[in-house]
């Protein structure tokens, strides 16, 4: 078995396949009991050019699982933290006071405050990964656009795609080192 501390889970979205249908967002809501009016996932779109010379990119978006997470730095209570075994950024709801410093710090708009008063965001369905299941978004995706994997494992589907495909990450200039890859 691999050393647990060496895992670094990330996510990729194939923008050739993704149609922006939001099945991932709905599956995420039912899997994680996300309250109405809030979401951990959303569809993003970028259109460039003038009619009729246009290009467009559509993708399913969420928490970017940054290596250098501004939310963790901003959190005064330690609620936002890096989960050692998976390398994922998580929120400990018992430590969160709902101060929203992390919401202000996150360049991706990935977080919201639950009605109960603590901050919530994509957990990368860590409870499912733990059971050896795929994340709810990856499982439901009708275009197989979403892939979650361990970036420290060169054999993971995600690592293989990163090696094989053109890709980009969002707002790298923010110094976040995001682990969310868009394949183009």
């Amino acid at each position, binding site marked *: *078995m691999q050393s*647990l501390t060496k*895992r670094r889970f990330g996510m990729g979205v*194939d923008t*050739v*396949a993704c*149609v*922006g*249908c*939001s*099945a991932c*967002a*709905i*599956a995420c*809501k*039912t*899997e994680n*009991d996300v309250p*109405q*009016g*809030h*979401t951990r996932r*959303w569809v993003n779109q970028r*259109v460039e*050019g*003038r*009619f*009729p010379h*246009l*290009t*467009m*990119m*559509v993708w399913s978006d969420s928490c970017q699982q940054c290596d250098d997470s501004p939310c963790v730095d901003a959190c005064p209570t330690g609620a936002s933290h890096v*989960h*050692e*075994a*998976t390398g994922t950024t*998580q929120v*400990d*709801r*018992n430590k969160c006071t709902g101060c929203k410093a992390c919401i202000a710090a996150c360049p991706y708009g990935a977080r919201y405050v639950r009605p109960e008063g603590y901050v919530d965001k994509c*957990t990368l*369905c*860590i*409870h*499912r*990964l*733990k*059971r*050896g*299941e*795929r994340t*709810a978004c990856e*499982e*439901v*995706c*009708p*275009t*197989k*656009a979403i892939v979650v994997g361990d970036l420290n494992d060169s054999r993971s589907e995600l690592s293989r795609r990163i090696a094989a495909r053109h890709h980009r990450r969002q707002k790298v200039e923010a110094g976040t080192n995001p682990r969310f890859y868009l394949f183009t």
Partner: protein
Amino acid sequence: MLKNKLSRRTFLSLAGVAGVGAGVAAKTALGITDGFLEDLGEGTVADEVVPTVCEICFWKCGVLAHKKDGRVFKITGNPSHPLSRGRLCPRGAGGPGLLYDNDRLKKPLIRVGERGEEKFREATWEEALDRVAEGFQKVADEHGPEAVGMLYHGAGASFFKTLLHGFGTPNIAAPSYAQCRGPREVGFELTYGEGVGSPENLDMRNTRTLVLIGAHLGENMHNTQVQDFAECLGKGAKLIVADPRYSTAAGKADWWLPVRPGTDIALILGWMHVILREGWYDKAWMQRNTIGLDKLEAHVARYTPEAVFVETGIEPDVIVETAEALSATAPASLVHPGRRVTWYGDDTQRSRAIAMLNALLGNWGRPGGFNMTSNVPIAKTELPAFPEHRPIADKLDGQYIFAGSPLASGLRDATLTEKPYPIKAWMVYGCNLPNVLPNTQKTLDAIQKLDFMVAIDVLPAEVCGWADVVLPECTYLERHDDLIAPWYREPFAALRQPVVDPMGESKPGWWMAKQLAKRLGLEQFFPWENPREMIHARLKASGYNAAQIADVEQRGVILGEPEPLYLPTDYEYEYGTPSGKIEFFSQQLADAGFDPMPTYRRPEMPPAGSFRLLTGRAPSHTFGRTANNSLLLDSYPENELWVNRVIAADFGLLHGGYAMVFGEGDTKTGPIRVKVTERIRADCVYMVHGFGHSARGLSKAHGRGANDSAVTTRYETDPLMGGTGFNVNFVRIEPAPDSSLGGVEA
């Protein structure tokens, strides 16, 4: 509730459910067990998983309903089911939003106000069903049983169809034909001798060059079709999209052809012109499989790329280039036949042109084209013969002779005109007629002519407000329906079975139909206690043993042995046309006085200051049926009016502001949020259908977005088969007087 529901444990032990089972087996492999996760929770773990079939749209994917303490908390794709392959669209995943919708009809209702006032009193089932039986019987006594008509959509209608056939009426129609797929089916029947069916027999996953004409896959979200679309793109297929709007699919295209609305036939004939002129086709295959190629060649001679450019606005070199791309990968090239194709009233001829272009690509029965299908044969329930009756009243003698299914719009006409004979009662099952048939006023006028109308629905849609009696049906998650066994590349039969007990006093359709049969003396047509008994009997008569039947209930699906998907290369296929060949030239059309080959006619263009209204789908909604679903509303809360940037500037429309849309006469939509975009031509505007509900009982959908039906007053009827083209409405747009109007916040 049934006793045989499987526990999660039993379910996981079934070999066929690989996705879920594999997950459990892999638990130790990942080994994230540091205990920290208690903070995050374990997520909700199902104590019961029930396989059934979705009905949020009509693709009917196999799903797994996950329950905890008796409540369905999520729905996932059934990995064993060929139409879901373990995956779902947003609507299917949003099923709990319908099941737990507080606005659901909970009790039978009897009208106390005027029709349309939505004033009802609650009634017992006994009283409501008596009323329906009396209403039908009275009409039948006076005008004959044929004076009772039914308009329906959905799998649950099968029991009511049996009831009304038994009652003695043929007047049973679904808008999914004349208002949707009908022209496509007829176009292909005239050309190949068979339609493409539903699910369509497209081998898209292996297509190397794909053409979409107005079909916006990805926004139109038929699960397996979108899976195949993504697969072929992933394998590097070339994509050509002809659409006045830069759809999601167009955003993935190698060529976007922003065709002038209504000129698609010219474009298709132009493509055929180029392919024939250049000889880019398989001559031996044409020789073996088609007739009339020489006549087609002469027919399309005048549709030069230059001539087509004038009509369509698509540059001649782009027409040649795309024709070449199509031919280069033939027969693994496919021109998608579309699905809702009721646009301009010449839709059968356009569909035929698409069928003929596909024929030139030689793709029938070949990889990447149209595949062969098979089914799981299931024995029918033996019923006594239905009574004799007068011919169907959906058309007059000699009208729409190529119609292959009853016309919903035709039944409305018959109700209005009493020709060929009066229709005096309607049963409306699961279709919201005022927003489904073009020209809402005509539909309401027809309803006012009825002596009696019953609406059967899950939610209090607009149509319910016009009914004399409203019967609350439970959702697809709370009932049995008949087995679902379509023709498909992987033959299967799927089972819809209840996951939870019906809410309130809602009841399954089969129960209502059986109760009505009792009252109408038609019990002989329901020779079973419940559908489970009927389904078991049908499976038994089809050769399945008890263990296999139990397995169906545990897996939700029976898989058949697939027939070959492709025809042998040199095989002489006997097509179902009169000539036995693919007919480029149709003698039967010529004999009936129609164009034997599709001819382009320039459509009426919008007058200055007006725009053609185009409509389509959002991926997270099904028509107007899901606008009240709180789960789905979060991702697409209201529709928008797409307006070209230049036009928006001319008309003072701001992105994110609101506009009013005016149609003929004094028709208009309520305020609709404006999307100022480069993604649409300047001669048309676009909105997603299914919003702007006026029914008061739809608390979340009411007043949200705009109702395109309100300004869809005009329609062109297809002379071949009676389809109703919707895209002939011209609208004016203005900024809404008070931009704070309408548009409920998400």
